[in-house]
């Protein structure tokens, strides 16, 4: 007999797995909400900086910061933001697909690629894929701190300053809603001046100490805040993706249990029928 006992054991183990996936789903749901709040909190900083940069860049046509000048791309720096942990559906895979596609596009134009990887999943992927990794940071946790990101960003920025790379590109996950996360490619450097028509008013700031250092600091902070925002958004994406993945895992476990329950009942019934027929035939033989 396909032992009723074995099936019962199987059902039990699936139930245990289901408990875990349910718990993970709920944890991810609550973490996602927090990550979304954090995402909103980071916005005013970047918006304000962008505004000031736009103004400063417009007001001072004579000082062109290298971050604002477009140059020919011989070498491209790509910052890839992935998660540290798995079990979040196709989130990372989609991101890496997009990254590889972007890399191919640049390579077709004759540019070489330098990679800066955030998150251990990206590190694992590109270790197997190959690629020139120049900076790496992982284990940022659910509450990433900007101070952990300064290093890798600085590495990319100084590579840009020294002319090693001529573009800086960010590949990240965009949080559309809980069900949808989309990989997105953004150009960080050179910074494109915002198109708001702020030239109309003729005032200018009083600068202290001078235009150049202020613009310098602002641009660096701006890049940092954009990358930080992307990392925070990625946490929200990770949690949303995990929530959805764990929900479908729990649902599937439920279906499996239902099916197995049916098989179990059949097996039990068959055993009883067999026993009865044995008793009856035994009695008839006497």
């Amino acid at each position: 007999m396909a032992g009723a006992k074995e099936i019962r054991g199987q059902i039990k183990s699936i139930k245990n797995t289901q408990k875990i996936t349910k718990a993970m789903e709920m944890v991810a749901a609550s973490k996602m909400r927090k990550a979304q709040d954090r995402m909103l909190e980071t916005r005013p900083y970047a918006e304000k900086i962008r505004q000031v940069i736009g103004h400063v860049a417009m007001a001072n046509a004579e000082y062109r910061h290298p971050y604002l000048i477009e140059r020919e791309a011989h070498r491209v720096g790509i910052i890839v933001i992935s998660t540290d942990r798995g079990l979040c559906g196709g989130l990372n895979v989609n991101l890496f697909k997009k990254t590889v596609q972007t890399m191919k596009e640049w390579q077709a134009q004759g540019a070489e690629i330098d990679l800066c990887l955030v998150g251990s999943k990206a590190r694992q992927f590109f270790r197997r894929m190959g690629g020139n990794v120049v900076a790496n940071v992982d284990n940022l946790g659910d509450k990433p701190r900007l101070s952990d990101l300064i290093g890798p960003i600085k590495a990319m920025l100084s590579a840009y300053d020294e002319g090693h790379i001529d573009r800086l590109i960010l590949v990240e996950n965009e949080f559309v809603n809980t069900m949808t996360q989309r990989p997105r490619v953004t150009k960080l450097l050179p910074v494109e001046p915002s198109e708001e028509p702020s030239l109309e008013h003729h005032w200018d700031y009083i600068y202290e100490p001078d235009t150049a250092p202020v613009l310098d600091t602002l641009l660096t902070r701006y890049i940092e805040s954009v990358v930080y925002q992307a990392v925070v958004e990625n946490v929200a994406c990770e949690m949303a993706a995990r929530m959805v993945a764990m929900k479908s895992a729990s649902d599937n476990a439920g279906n499996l249990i239902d099916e197995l329950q049916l098989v179990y009942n059949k097996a039990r019934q068959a055993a009883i029928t067999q026993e009865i027929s044995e008793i009856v035939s035994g009695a008839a033989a006497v």
Partner: protein
Amino acid sequence: MSMTFHVDIVSAEESIFSGTAHMLVAPAEHGEVGILPRHSQYVSLLKPGEVRIRISDSGEEQNIYISGGVLEVQPHVVTVLADTAIRAKDLDEAEALEAKRRAEDALANQRADFDYARAQSELAEAAARLRMIQKLRRSSSQQ
């Protein structure tokens, strides 16, 4: 009624303060600056130090410590873009080197990760084989 202006203190990670004020004192690069309502447009780098905000007429103050940043002043809105950590050129440099070192480590340990991946695929194969055997056994016992 005296005049007030709006103050926002934000860092890249969070919003630290938002509200109206009568006066704001900030540690600018060339010494402390006091901002009153209708100050002309002004941008300055800030040193690590205290930002003091006078919230009410009676002189009630709120002090916020920042580790540097940028001050932006418009006649009725003042924004402090605060840094989240103490920033210095050589400190940043050290962080950058650390990130590079990690990348090199990651490449140096290539073998370890490769073995891990292979072990994982072997495990998956073994598990598949096991399932196959179980299935065969089950169908033979049912016959």
